[in-house]
């Protein structure tokens, strides 16, 4: 049997006696993998990280890291003996230390144990906090504090790095650059990481795998592409909020029929018998704009998203569906205009429930 790097088996994650996530199992196969956990606020993502770090005890199931048992009902390795680093969502910088000293704090354990740690200078440069090193936490912005805290967690080169909403306070225009840099650091140094976030794009970019936690359960744990294109339940679809479910009838091996949109072609992700009534996931990129089409829908809203517009269209049966159109597309529409959809509709993955 292949040894797993991290093995979480049937754990009930709880805080203050209240179970937040039930019967949670998740494996990380190899060192250096990055896992992102997604879920709505208050669902218990942070509790999972705190329990893995050893800050909360576990009453059911077990957590093993590199085959060593860390937590179970009868055993609990103290956080200081786990070599797991956690970067908290809220600012957890020591207010009486400068940023430099705060960052050095991350490497103290390595110095005592003679363990390798990462070169802080390099990470400081990559995360662009060189100019705040001599300042105190109250003198810097929330975004800078978050990057400093991230640096401190990363430099210790832990066996497992846990990041709780690591980029939530960072300015939007700067976020993408930090995401790229962060991924580069983690991959270069093969740091196994679990990232908790509510931003699905961040999760899809950073994670080798993504876990979706909903209603106290891990609903889906898969590669980002699969989570996005093959959501395994209506719960996940609703959470990701990337499309609408329209009623349809399966008419063939590769076809189904919707009253408003007509024939839809594609490959079914799951098998469905002909004649079955299903709900088809329709994502904005599934439909194509075509002025000449005889399928004309009313535009009821139009959002400018920079690289594209998202049109909200109303079908005859009063259903709202979204369509992406590149913002350089020659023919844009206004609210109340008619908007043509290319027929027949062809969707690569037919996700039906």
């Amino acid at each position, binding site marked *: 049997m292949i040894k797993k790097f991290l093995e979480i088996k049937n754990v009930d994650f709880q805080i203050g006696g209240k179970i937040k996530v039930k019967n949670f199992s998740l494996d990380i196969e190899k060192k250096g993998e990055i896992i992102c956990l997604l879920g709505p606020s208050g669902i218990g993502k942070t509790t999972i990280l705190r329990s893995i770090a050893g*800050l909360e005890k576990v009453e059911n199931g077990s957590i093993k890291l590199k085959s060593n048992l860390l937590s179970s009902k009868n055993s609990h390795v*103290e*956080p200081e*003996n786990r070599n*797991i680093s*956690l970067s908290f969502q809220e600012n*957890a910088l020591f207010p009486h230390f400068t940023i430099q000293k705060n960052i050095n704090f991350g490497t103290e354990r390595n110095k*005592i144990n003679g363990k390798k740690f990462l070169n802080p200078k390099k990470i400081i440069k990559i995360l662009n906090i060189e100019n705040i090193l001599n300042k105190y936490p109250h003198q810097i912005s929330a975004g800078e504090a978050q990057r400093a805290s991230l640096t401190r967690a990363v430099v210790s080169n832990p066996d497992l790095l846990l990041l709780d909403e690591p980029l939530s306070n960072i300015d939007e225009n700067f976020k993408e650059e930090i995401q790229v840099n962060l991924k580069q650091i983690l991959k270069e140094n093969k740091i196994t990481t679990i990232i908790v976030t509510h931003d699905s794009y961040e999760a899809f970019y950073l994670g080798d795998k993504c876990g979706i936690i909903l209603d106290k359960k891990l609903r889906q744990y898969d590669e980002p592409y699969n989570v996005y294109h093959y959501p395994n339940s209506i719960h996940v679809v609703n959470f990701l909020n990337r499309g609408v479910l329209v009623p349809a009838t399966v008419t063939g091996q590769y076809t189904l029929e919707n009253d408003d949109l007509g024939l839809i072609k594609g490959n079914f992700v799951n098998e469905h018998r002909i004649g079955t009534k299903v709900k088809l996931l329709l994502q904005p990129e599934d439909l194509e704009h075509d002025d000449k089409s005889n399928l004309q829908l009313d535009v009821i809203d139009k959002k400018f998203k920079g690289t594209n517009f998202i049109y909200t269209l109303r079908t005859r049966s009063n259903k709202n569906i979204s369509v992406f159109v590149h913002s350089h597309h020659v023919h844009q529409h206004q609210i109340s205009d008619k908007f043509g959809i290319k027929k027949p509709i062809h969707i690569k993955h037919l996700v039906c429930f």
Partner: protein
Amino acid sequence: MRTFNIWYLSSFLISVIVIIPVVTVFLSFFESTSDYFELLKNTFLFEYISNSLILVFGVLFLTLIIGVSTAYIVSFYSFPFSNFFKWALILGFAVPPYIYAYSLTAFFENYGTAYTILKSLFGEFNYNLHIPKFDGMIGAILSISFSIYAYVYILTTASFYFQSNNLIELGKNLGFSKLKTLFKVIIPSARPAIVAGLALVAMETLSDFGAVDFFSINTLTTAIYNSWLSFDDLVFSNQLSFYLLIFIFALFVIEKFSRRNAKYHSPLQGGFKKKQRAKLIGIKAFLAFLFCFLIFFLSFLFPIFQMLYWTILYPKNFFDLNIQDLLLNTLLLVALSSVVLIIFSFISNYGTRVNKSRFLNFLTTISISGYALPGVILALAYISFVAWFDNTIIHYFELQSVKKIFIGSILGLVIAYFVRFYSLSCNGIKSSYEKINKTLDETAYLSGYSKLKTFLNIHVPYLKSSIFFVTILISLEIIRELPITLILRPFNFETFATTAYIYASQDLLEAAAVPSLFLVLIASLFILLISRYILKENND
């Protein structure tokens, strides 16, 4: 309870030590006592209670007026020396009520300082008839009020500091005059802070021993002391204490409740806009200055000048007094008590922090109730308990008496101070502790720090200034403290406070001036050291 560890043990121990005096008083209530109690119940008890109430209401009235008006003026207006007065008005706290009482009497008594001044200005005449006499109840009310109005002043200033300018602007917007804004907006929203300050004042007044004893007013406190001293009837003292504790308990509840409400004035709720103090000019500036100066003069300069005058007038008293010994004794008590208090406060606070236990929280709440116990009650209940312990437990096991170890010893004093001032120390550390985000502890653990190392390397450095503040606060209280020291001190062991009291009780006010002066000077120095902290930190 999941784990029983050192934190539980120490918190439990502290609660037991603090609760002993209360239980002793309570149990004594049901014990039989000398006939004196019956006699007294039918005769003087009413007088004791009514005197205590008159005193409390008199002091509350005066401290309310002085405390709130000065707090309002220095918080909302800028005038010459307004920043100086902001902290100088706390200095009155350095003069304990009994020392104020000595100065007041010394100045106004027949042929006193006032007489001397008038004589030197206008020549020989019998001025005594025209000089008002501030003795008896009036004297006690004045002495206590000027000494402790700072409680109201400090808490009200803190509350005013956090009153958002929006509130005041809202008042203006509604067309309120300045006076109407004061009574309709500013004071009502500072009410919880004012009530908390007044509750503290009332507690201190009921506990006061030195000033009322000096003016020979029979209050519950002096009756408790006298019944012990004159009739050697500890049970009776404790029974009187029971009545007093009922008052105190009511005040304790009011104070707790008000403080909880006082938190509602936190700027964290958002919308806080810092005030710009209005600049006063001309006659208004002069009047504001005059009023603050008057209070500062009456509360601080007046007793200082009076004592200084006597010290200079009778230098022999200065040279007769063994100041070095008194200083060393005072410092010894201060140092020992501070160390013990700080250590236990740390243990208790840290224990509550790492254990997250409700039971431990409950124990801590009990432990901090000691400050409501008047020194006289505490000292006598302590003696009662040790005597009981010695007569029953020790006697039963046929061991050597422990009375001498615990009564009339430095250890006994430290224990009694501990009970009295534990809440001061514990809450002082707690309020700073609560400002350290718990994630900092967790970050330290995750970086490989043990709990002990986190405590030593993270908490202690972070709390340095608060340790300093609490130490000074404890020291200030201990050097002002009179009844506990008086009752429990070892034979021939004197402090500035007890020396002043002994001279004054022998009608040697001139001699009492020197130790009083030293006491006030040291206390002022302590206040100066922490004045910034009181005015700033208290605001958080």
